[in-house]
């Protein structure tokens, strides 16, 4: 259930909203930006904008939040073109803690960093979040063919990159 801003005050309401959505939003931002610090800033900006809106003007559904984070990320990418230095902190983790393979993770991260943001985004939504191509197309306002080809390009490039590293 979506938390509602009530008598308990803005901070408690925002905390509940954060707990409900921040994990998914942050991971989404991490994959668009391939940068953990930038993802933190994007999520922070979105929640701050929500906190500053008056009651009755607050939209806090998942779809809206995703779009807001996405906009923040692409704005950050446009700014980044004018700046130098990108965060190279690890942005992937193994699903099972016992499955740690640092070399493979590093290779994957490095391969993912070479992809354009649009391909990283589709890769994330399909491979990590499990959305269908149709759902991704609806979310991004793109055609299903565009989304599917971005995904295939992304996987193809990852394969090439990983294959080149192995040889």
């Amino acid at each position, binding site marked *: 259930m979506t938390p509602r*801003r009530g008598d308990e*005050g*803005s*901070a408690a309401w*925002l*905390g509940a909203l*954060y*707990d409900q959505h*921040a*994990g998914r939003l*942050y*991971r*989404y931002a*991490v*994959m668009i930006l391939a940068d*953990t610090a930038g*993802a*933190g800033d994007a*999520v*922070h900006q979105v*929640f*701050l904008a929500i*906190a*500053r*809106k*008056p*009651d009755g003007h607050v939209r806090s559904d998942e779809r809206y939040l995703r779009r807001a984070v996405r906009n923040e990320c692409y704005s950050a990418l446009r700014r980044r073109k004018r700046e130098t230095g990108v965060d190279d902190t*690890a*942005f*992937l*983790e*193994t*699903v*099972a803690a016992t*499955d740690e*393979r640092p070399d*493979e*993770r590093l290779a*994957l991260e490095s391969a993912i960093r070479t992809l354009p943001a649009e391909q990283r985004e589709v*890769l*994330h939504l399909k*491979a*990590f979040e499990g959305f269908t191509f149709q759902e991704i197309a609806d979310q991004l306002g793109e055609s299903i063919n565009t989304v599917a080809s971005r995904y*295939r390009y992304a*996987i*193809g490039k*990852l*394969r090439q990159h*990983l294959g080149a590293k192995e040889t």
Partner: protein
Amino acid sequence: MDEIERGMEETEQQLRHYRPVGPPPELRSRVVGGARPPRTSLWMWLPTSALAAAALILMIVSANARRGLAAEFAPPAENREAVANAVAAELGGDPAVRALVARLIELDEREGTFDQDTAARPEGSRHE
């Protein structure tokens, strides 16, 4: 399944072992702690404050207008004297009564209710 598809499947399998990292713990306090109280309260008071300001302005303007009108239509001093003398004479002509009548006329003028014509008429003819 051709070789390309098999390769893609392998890469997807490899990806399934991983996921992007979650938010660092300090982000929550940064978000929740950094949130200022909503501006709702300010906006909520705006119509009320505007109404109160309008009422105050209206009150000042009408008070000024009333004062201006009272000054414009104030009876000349000689009329006031004549009316005071006439009323005092009707009440016996005592100087203390004369002074009281003059004071009453003055107060009446300040309130804006003094009517020279009615006051100057003999008592019997005031109620028609």
